[in-house]
């Protein structure tokens, strides 16, 4: 099994290599307006996280995940599970596809351990960490910003905590999820990140949207 798949740690040493997050260019070219005093809408990037796509049967993947990560697959479509400290999450994307998000430096170790547990099962694990990024949206007007952007029903009473969907965002697509009461998360493809960022700033302007200062995209 080990040599039937090319398992490859392509993450560089962030101490010696200059890494740039998907929004680095946008922060530079579109600016980072400070949030209004009320902070009705605030965006921020959580860069350099580990994003792994898991493909396979739910039962074997659930077992392996519980063993390796301590959390299982979400039981229902369009939902996610988050671990106790909120650092690791698994989200349903399709009946045979899940998105695993973990701290960036855990990515390769996690893939290796999962593969070891999965043995000869027919699964695919794909590292897409550099291909997408996570944008956080907070504030009381966050869902209104989203109403201007996505066709999905984001009424906080309907889009409850623990829900996550892939849907339309303006003229592109995002993975949209709500890990807790106060936060929305948008997972966007790298090449579309600038468009999504500019759209969010525009849609949020009437609510005094700004960018969280910690979004400095330094390596973690």
């Amino acid at each position, binding site marked *: 099994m080990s040599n039937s798949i090319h398992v490859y740690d392509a993450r560089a040493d962030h101490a010696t290599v200059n890494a740039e997050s998907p929004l680095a260019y946008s922060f530079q070219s579109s600016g980072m307006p400070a949030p209004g005093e009320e902070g009705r809408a605030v965006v921020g990037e959580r860069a350099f996280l580990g994003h792994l796509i898991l493909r396979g049967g739910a039962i074997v993947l659930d077992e392996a995940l519980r063993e390796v990560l301590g959390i299982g697959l979400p039981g229902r*479509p369009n939902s996610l599970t988050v671990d106790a400290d909120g650092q690791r999450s698994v989200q349903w994307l*399709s*009946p045979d*596809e899940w998105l695993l998000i973990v701290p960036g430096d855990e990515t390769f170790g996690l893939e290796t351990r999962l593969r070891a547990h999965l043995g000869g099962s027919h699964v695919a694990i794909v590292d897409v960490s550099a291909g997408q990024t996570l944008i956080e949206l907070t504030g009381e007007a966050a869902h209104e910003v989203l109403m201007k952007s996505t*066709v999905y029903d984001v009424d906080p009473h309907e889009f409850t905590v623990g829900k996550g969907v892939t*849907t339309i965002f303006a003229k592109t697509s995002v993975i949209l999820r709500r890990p807790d009461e106060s936060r929305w998360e948008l997972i966007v493809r790298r090449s579309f990140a600038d468009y999504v960022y500019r759209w969010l700033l525009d849609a949020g302007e009437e609510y005094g949207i700004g960018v969280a200062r910690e979004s400095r995209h330094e390596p973690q």
Partner: protein
Amino acid sequence: MFHIYCPYCEELREEEEFHPKGQAHIARPEEPDACSDEEWGDYLFFRDNPRGIHHEMWLHAVGCRKFFNITRNTVSYEILETYKMGEQPTVGAEHLAREEKTSSVQAAEGGQQTVGASDAALASVKGAQA
């Protein structure tokens, strides 16, 4: 703008998330090389265009990326069912005949076009039965 129930996501989603992929249940011939040119041409190019019940394949493109099937009334645009790839429809053309019969009294007052619709539906059912 359709509202489509994705059988994999198990909820209604907006049409913008989907791509229509044409008529459903077009199986690729098992042995292409044994097909005549005409048979292969039929498989490649010829599709039904019924007035009434139609089985269509759709893709939840911005969503779970799964293909699935829809039974749709091409007159009213009503979606009568959606079902997973590999499953068979439970609603066919005879369903429409029942619906039209019960509403034909009302439809007759509505004018020529509506009456025409029900005639066509009945005719297509007759064709299916023959």
